[in-house]
């Protein structure tokens, strides 16, 4: 018997089924009351991208205001100090609570996770829909708070400023409270789904690494978010009824608020970054056409990052008046974060080594992620180190650092993942050429905007400043120009992705020669995901040639 090597070890294309999850049922209620994880994922995607647009416009407005020290554009003052404070608060709150926390898990995760597991849906489809409506309620409350005058507390709501300032702070915190529950329910749902709905033959170490990342994220969502809820309820009680919890004038402790807040919000940083890393762990082996290097190391590093994330919150408070012993211990623990992050970087790098690397748009974003996450991670060392943190904390250095991690890493991974699964979600390919242009502008714009801010920060420019010393003007102007390139890149990306929707469906089932189960079904998938229950035959990322009979 002759043997030959198939170029693709996976199932080839079948004729596209007439019915898919997009056209199976029609009408408003078929979407609004759907229990299908794919439709809920798409609704989330529309929601988070709308929030991203809103938060992005506020970001551009912040940068534009800082273009000159006089804040004037064509002779008119763009924003007053009070407006500026509201706009940067809205930028932060929208981007964190409405966009980046739900972005990957709730939109791409919702769509892909059951498909990757070979399941028909998540474990609790109704809870999934409920968590979407909670998100929507929270979003509407946040927008209502904006319409009724907006808050100027910063997204961190530090007391006693937040308990004494004017504006609908209670409404805004209630919005974040509701959004928190949306996040908790999504996490709960995913944990149950991963435990109970894996395809026959799929053990824990046969899970795609995306699932490991989302699973680790879900643990944090379920364990940490309630603390945010409790904190915000206490804040509302203090504001509404004058119960002294955080305000020293009525017997409270403002530093206690910071402990509570960061006890959630530091793990929340990992709610944001772990799903980004999870996407990268899919993109790199697929586009290198090579098995992932150190599968178990990557899986365990996701879980260990989730656990370590709970014991480092005090590094936000080195100069905030917590005990000096606590400060030293938190600094030591913070360095633990570097180890699993480094492990992942080395594994991704070695996966590319001797690969067969196709530089399609998702892979370009993955490589962008590696450079930006390296910068974000390495500048974290400056901030985790006690003596240098004293000078750098509360300056633009911190702003640049977390934008490199949250935007340069997570959002880059999100856009990469969006391109990767776009054919699966919509059944259509986008313009590859425009994809490269968008990615190039994203890289240039992002690095111009935020690399500059490291220099502003180390030079002593504090964050959340409306007025600044004249000496910082050139760097601010450079950063602002970068933000326009960034915005242009995103605009182009939105344009060609939307344009692709006008074409007839042209995406093959498996455009990237992926190995995970979502590529085994049609693009877009049918309502119940698979024609028949898929069975795991090979572990994920197995690119060894399949011997076929000729």
């Amino acid at each position, binding site marked *: 018997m002759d043997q030959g090597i198939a*170029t693709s070890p996976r199932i080839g294309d079948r004729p596209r089924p007439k019915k898919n999850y997009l056209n199976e049922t029609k009408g408003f209620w078929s979407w609004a009351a759907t229990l299908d994880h794919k439709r809920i994922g798409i609704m989330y995607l529309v929601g988070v991208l709308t929030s991203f647009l809103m938060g992005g416009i506020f970001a551009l407005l912040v940068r534009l205001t800082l273009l000159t020290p006089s804040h004037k554009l064509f002779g008119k003052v763009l924003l007053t*100090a009070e407006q500026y404070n509201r706009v940067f608060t809205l930028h932060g709150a929208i981007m964190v609570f409405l966009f980046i926390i739900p972005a990957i898990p709730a939109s791409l995760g919702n769509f892909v996770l059951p498909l990757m597991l070979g399941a028909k849906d998540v474990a609790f489809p109704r809870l999934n829909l409920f968590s979407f409506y909670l998100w929507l309620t929270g979003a509407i409350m946040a927008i209502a708070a904006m319409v009724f005058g907006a808050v100027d507390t*910063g997204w961190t709501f*530090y007391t*006693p*400023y937040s308990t*004494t*300032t004017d504006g609908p702070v209670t409404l805004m915190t209630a919005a974040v409270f509701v959004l928190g529950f949306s996040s908790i329910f999504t996490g709960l749902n995913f944990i149950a789904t991963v435990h109970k709905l894996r395809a026959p033959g799929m053990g824990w170490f046969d899970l795609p690494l995306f699932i490991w990342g989302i699973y680790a994220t879900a643990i944090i969502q379920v364990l940490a978010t309630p603390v945010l809820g409790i904190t915000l309820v206490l804040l509302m009680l203090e504001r509404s009824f004058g119960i002294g919890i955080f305000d*020293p*004038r009525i017997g409270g*402790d403002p*530093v206690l608020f910071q402990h509570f807040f960061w006890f959630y919000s530091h793990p929340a940083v990992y709610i944001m970054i772990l799903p980004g890393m999870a996407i990268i762990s899919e993109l790199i082996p697929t586009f*290198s*056409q*090579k098995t992932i290097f*150190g*599968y178990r190391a990557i899986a365990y590093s996701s879980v260990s990052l989730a656990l370590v994330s709970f014991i480092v919150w005090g590094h936000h408070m080195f*100069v905030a008046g917590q005990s*000096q012993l606590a400060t030293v211990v938190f600094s030591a623990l913070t*360095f633990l974060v570097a*180890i699993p992050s480094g*492990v992942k970087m*080395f594994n991704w*790098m*070695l996966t*590319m*080594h*001797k*690969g*067969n*690397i*196709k*530089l399609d748009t998702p*892979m370009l974003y993955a490589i962008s992620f*590696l450079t930006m996450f390296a*910068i974000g991670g*390495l500048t974290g*060392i400056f901030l*985790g*180190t006690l*003596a*240098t*943190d*004293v*000078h750098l904390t*509360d300056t633009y250095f911190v702003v640049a650092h977390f934008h490199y991690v949250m935007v340069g890493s997570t959002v880059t991974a999100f856009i990469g993942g969006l391109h990767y699964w776009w054919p699966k979600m919509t059944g259509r390919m986008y313009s590859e050429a425009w994809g490269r242009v968008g990615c190039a502008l994203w890289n240039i714009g992002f690095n111009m905007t935020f690399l500059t801010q490291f*220099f502003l920060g*180390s*030079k*002593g420019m*504090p*964050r*959340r*400043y*409306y*007025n*600044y010393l004249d000496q910082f003007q050139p760097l601010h102007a450079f950063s602002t120009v970068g933000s326009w390139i960034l915005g242009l890149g995103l605009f182009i990306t939105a344009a060609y992705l939307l344009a692709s929707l006008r074409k007839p469906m042209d995406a093959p089932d498996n455009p990237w020669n992926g190995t995970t189960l979502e590529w085994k079904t049609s693009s877009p998938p049918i309502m119940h995901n698979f024609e028949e229950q898929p069975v795991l035959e090979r572990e994920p990322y*197995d*690119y060894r*040639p399949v011997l076929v009979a000729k």
Partner: protein
Amino acid sequence: MEWLTRLMMPPVGSEFAKEIDFMYMGLFWLSVALFCIVALPPIYFAWRYRYKPGRVTPHITHNTPLEIVWTVVPLLLCVAIFFWGLKGWMEYAVAPGDAMEVQITAKKWLWQFEYPDGSRTINDLHVPVNKNVKFIMTSEDVIHDFFVPDMRVKHDIIPGRYTEVWFNPTAMGKHVITCAEYCGKGHSDMHGVLTVENDADFAKFLETGGTEWEDYFNGKDPKKTPADWGRVQYETKGCNSCHTLDGTKSKGPSWKGIWGKMETLNNGSKVLVDEAYVRESMMSPSAKVVNGFEPIMPSFQGLLKENQIKGLIAFIQSLQ
């Protein structure tokens, strides 16, 4: 490489600042090296192993010795960096016992400094060169943060608590003080000036609130009138964060054309803006508040020396 340090860091104001710069640059070069190690190979691989149809990739699942190396080596590096940072931080955290104590009271949006002899200034901090100075800080409203970039120190100032920070200035001259914890509308204008001077000048400063004022009252220089001295006070004592000079309404009434005017107060009565009223407004500002403004101005009782009050009155008078 000194130029690179200067490109990234503010001027050096103390020995501690020099140490921090050295540490910062050490971490900078380490980061550059690590960036080359972790971020450049993927870019090289993307070119070196670029796609060729039909190429079969090797099935390499892991390499235990290599994985141990890239877990243990970074861990050791992290331990070393932690202790390096701890050493510098101990210096920052523990003030020497012989330090002169200056009290700082922060409030929206100014700094109030009180010296051991009881003399007080606003936004104008003077310290003797090469002496340890410790600051005992508290806030009257929200959280602020005392940040002196040139000294590389900052610490939050918390209402209802006292926090400390110290430094030993070595660079004579003026340095910027900024607020580094968001505190609302005037956050970015909450600046102070730190003047590092020799012992004789510092002693004189305590006596009279500075030496500079004499030049403005002796009539020798036509460019230095009492009104000009008033302008200096306007810019350094925090007046300018609430009062404008061009007629636009800010947190307080603009000073333009205010002298000699009949103002309506918030209780409906009228008052003539003259020397008596201006003096009263500085010392007990809540007594007669102009209609349309909040009674938010703090008292400057004991904060302004007589020469400064005279200068300010001359300055307001000159703004016709």
